[in-house]
């Protein structure tokens, strides 16, 4: 094979016709990708477009069903991450591949093939991390670190292998805007050193700012190549999604209704060895408004959600008030009976039981709320009524599924989330608390969900949305509060909120509720 069409001296990596099939789903279908030396190349696409599958094949974690890969013009077969590392491919994972019970240095050691002593690795990692402005203590336990710090470990680990190509999978999704800026500087410096970077994202602004070229994927296929610097965000979005995506329509809240949910001085001890305590949280949500809670993952949002929902009880009954009733000592079912509804972050295994059918999952949150509609005397389950209600939700929320009443695990993330949100909306709750409403959900479903939340508020309910997606919060919230390190800032009305101000709060620069200058009566 002396005249292989793949050979090209300028290109570091060339991929032709890469295909990966899971069951009946073509996650990657005949994907082509070319990365030149010394460029930052964006891989753009929605959730579920096949980006992660593609990079897992490039890193040897997944085996392609068909296709070819050439590295420096030579055809290669990347059968394992070890092979990828030897070639010079490094990877920073989206869901970190770190070990919480081990130290940062041990984590780094695990991905290096040789037998260098841990102390040497620690010293090297420390030196490298400071030289790139990403300070890191190699002896700390990963479980004790923030998400941003964990990402530093991933990056340092990757750099210590001196790769020629660095793959970053959605790296800014866990960072504050300021931390993201810092990361961009690092990446630009790496490019200046002659390294290539494959940068995976669905955030258009940062791609336009950072990347030299882009490959766009949709439904497992490559749908275009472009120079992102000459495109507009909307032209990129159109390529990514295929159609125009409308932002949720928002009319400003007319009158602030009566207070329906209030949290008064809530504190909570850390539940597990690596979880966050809650420190003196105050918040009030009135009928008709959407309050957003921003923050980097792992700053206590999950703990706050559990405390509001009643999965974790408070010491004082007044710590949570729902429609004026003290609910701090009530369990989740009693809080639902007061008119509250909850949607947790984790869909499978928290908001829904994976191996139960959708109709059974309806019963999960509604066995005690709907009078005797679903559960009769003596605890008899009325499956007919439940089936009917599930069907209604499926129609209203446009849930797409393959069987009449499939198991929750058989649905795509977006469709399951639509069902879970629909399950709660169907009750017409007066208080709705949602954690990460559109995480991992495709653009169409996300728009549908956001619109539904806004409509619920406009009809007089109080809506509290916890999210790490700032664009989403700016789109739907009337005010945004920020969680950092288990503390919650005062909500900033949307008219006064800027990306920079929220970003600073997310980084913990300014605990808002302690600042008397911004105290609003």
């Amino acid at each position, binding site marked *: 094979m002396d005249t292989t069409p793949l050979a090209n001296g300028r290109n570091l990596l060339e991929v032709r016709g890469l295909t990966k099939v899971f069951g009946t789903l073509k996650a990657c279908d005949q994907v082509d990708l070319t990365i030149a030396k010394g460029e930052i190349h964006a891989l753009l696409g929605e959730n579920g477009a096949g980006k992660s599958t593609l990079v897992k094949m490039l890193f040897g974690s997944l085996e392609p069903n068909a296709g070819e890969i050439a590295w420096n013009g030579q055809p290669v077969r990347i059968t394992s991450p*070890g092979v990828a590392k030897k070639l010079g491919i490094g990877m920073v994972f989206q869901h970190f591949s770190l070990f919480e019970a*081990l130290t940062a240095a041990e984590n780094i050691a695990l991905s290096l093939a040789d037998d260098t002593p841990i102390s040497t690795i620690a010293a090297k990692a420390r030196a490298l991390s400071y030289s790139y402005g990403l300070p890191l203590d190699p002896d700390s336990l990963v479980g004790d670190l923030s998400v941003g710090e964990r990402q530093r470990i991933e990056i340092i680990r990757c750099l210590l292998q001196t790769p020629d190509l660095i793959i970053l999978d959605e790296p800014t999704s866990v960072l504050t805007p300021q931390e993201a800026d810092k990361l961009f500087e690092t990446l630009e410096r790496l490019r200046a050193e002659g390294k290539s970077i494959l940068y995976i994202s669905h955030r258009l602004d940062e791609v336009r700012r950072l990347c030299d070229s882009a490959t766009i994927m949709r439904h497992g296929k490559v749908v275009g190549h472009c120079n992102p610097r000459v495109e507009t965000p909307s032209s990129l979005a159109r390529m990514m999604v295929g159609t125009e995506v409308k932002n949720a329509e928002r009319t400003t809240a007319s009158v602030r209704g009566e207070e329906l949910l209030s949290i008064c001085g809530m504190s909570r001890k850390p539940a597990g060895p690596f979880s966050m305590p809650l420190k003196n949280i105050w918040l009030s949500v009135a009928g008709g408004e959407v309050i957003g809670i921003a923050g980097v993952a792992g700053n206590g949002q999950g703990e706050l959600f559990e405390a509001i929902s009643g999965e974790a009880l408070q010491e004082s009954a007044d710590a949570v008030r729902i429609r004026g009733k003290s609910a701090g000592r009530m369990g989740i079912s009693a809080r639902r009976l007061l008119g509250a509804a909850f949607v947790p972050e984790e869909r499978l295994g928290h908001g829904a039981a994976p191996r139960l059918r959708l109709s059974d999952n309806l019963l999960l949150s509604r066995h005690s709320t709907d009078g005797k509609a679903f559960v009769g005397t003596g605890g008899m389950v009325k499956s007919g009524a439940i089936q009917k209600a599930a069907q209604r939700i499926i129609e209203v929320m446009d849930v797409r599924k393959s069987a009449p009443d499939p198991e929750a695990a058989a649905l795509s993330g977006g469709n399951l989330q639509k069902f879970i949100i629909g399950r709660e909306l169907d009750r017409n709750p007066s208080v709705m608390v949602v954690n990460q409403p559109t995480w991992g959900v495709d653009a169409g479903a996300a728009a549908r969900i956001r619109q539904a939340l806004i409509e619920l508020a406009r009809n007089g309910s109080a809506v509290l949305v916890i999210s790490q997606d700032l664009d989403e919060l700016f789109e739907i919230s009337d005010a945004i509060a920020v969680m950092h390190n288990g503390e919650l800032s005062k909500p900033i009305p949307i008219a006064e909120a800027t990306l920079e101000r929220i970003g600073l709060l997310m980084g913990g620069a300014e605990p808002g509720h302690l600042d008397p200058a911004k105290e609003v009566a």
Partner: protein
Amino acid sequence: MFEDILITIATAATPLLIAAVGEVVVERSGVLNLGVEGMMVMGAVTGFGVALTTGSPWLGVVAAIIVGMLFSLLFGFLTLTLVTNQVATGLALTLLGLGLSGMLGEGFVGLPGIKMSYLHIPYLTDVPYIGRLFFGQDPLFYVSILLTAGVAWFLFRSRAGLTLRSIGDNHTSAHALGIKVIGIRYLAVMFGGACAGLAGAYLSLIYTPQWIENMTAGRGWIALALVVFASWRPWRVLAGAYLFGAVSIGQLHAQALGVGVPSQLLSSLPYLATVVVLVLISRNRRLTMVNTPASLGRPFVPDR
């Protein structure tokens, strides 16, 4: 007299120690093998039978190790390749081991066994008070101490041990880094099986050199409890094993002295002590959560 008691305690503790140290390695890799009792009893019957037929206790020991390993492979195939429930499969291994050993050992019941001879080093063993304690015990006693030291070094000082612990902490991350999760778990499970087989041979070749059906009498389960008690650390397993050795020897002496408490109730002391110790150690939820390998007992199916 005092030396005698210490030596008998060591004899009672050694099989627990060997089995538990093996299980520490298995559980550190994230696999919960509740079949220790079954592998142990298979080791006991094999060790006894092979020693009896060949006349060599050492061949018995080797055979017991091999059978323990083969038995653990069965467990490994089900839980690692077929991803069956680890708790249920471990129980199945125990039930199968108890059943098979009863069947295989039927002809051995009542036969006098072959006892492995104790170490004797001229002069050293004859040193008064401590000579026999340090230089005059059975060979497997020394093996058990070396094994503990070796496993402690392996787990916390070697790179391979770090890799094994990483799998126990988060098998998904380990897989993403290219660590061969299933392969390493197979090795760990086999090591645990070898140790359990060896511990069984200790019972039928040294502790009571004969074959009695169900002669492990729950020691495999106590070994499992020791692993929890020791929060997955080899030297603490040693401390725990000797504690249990002391309890079981203590109750035997109490029975011999006739302290007026029925013998059956004294015999139940080691089991009750296990329960009490488990309660004491697990009361501190935070401590257990930090120490328990996070992937313990969770099924792992890699994406391909």
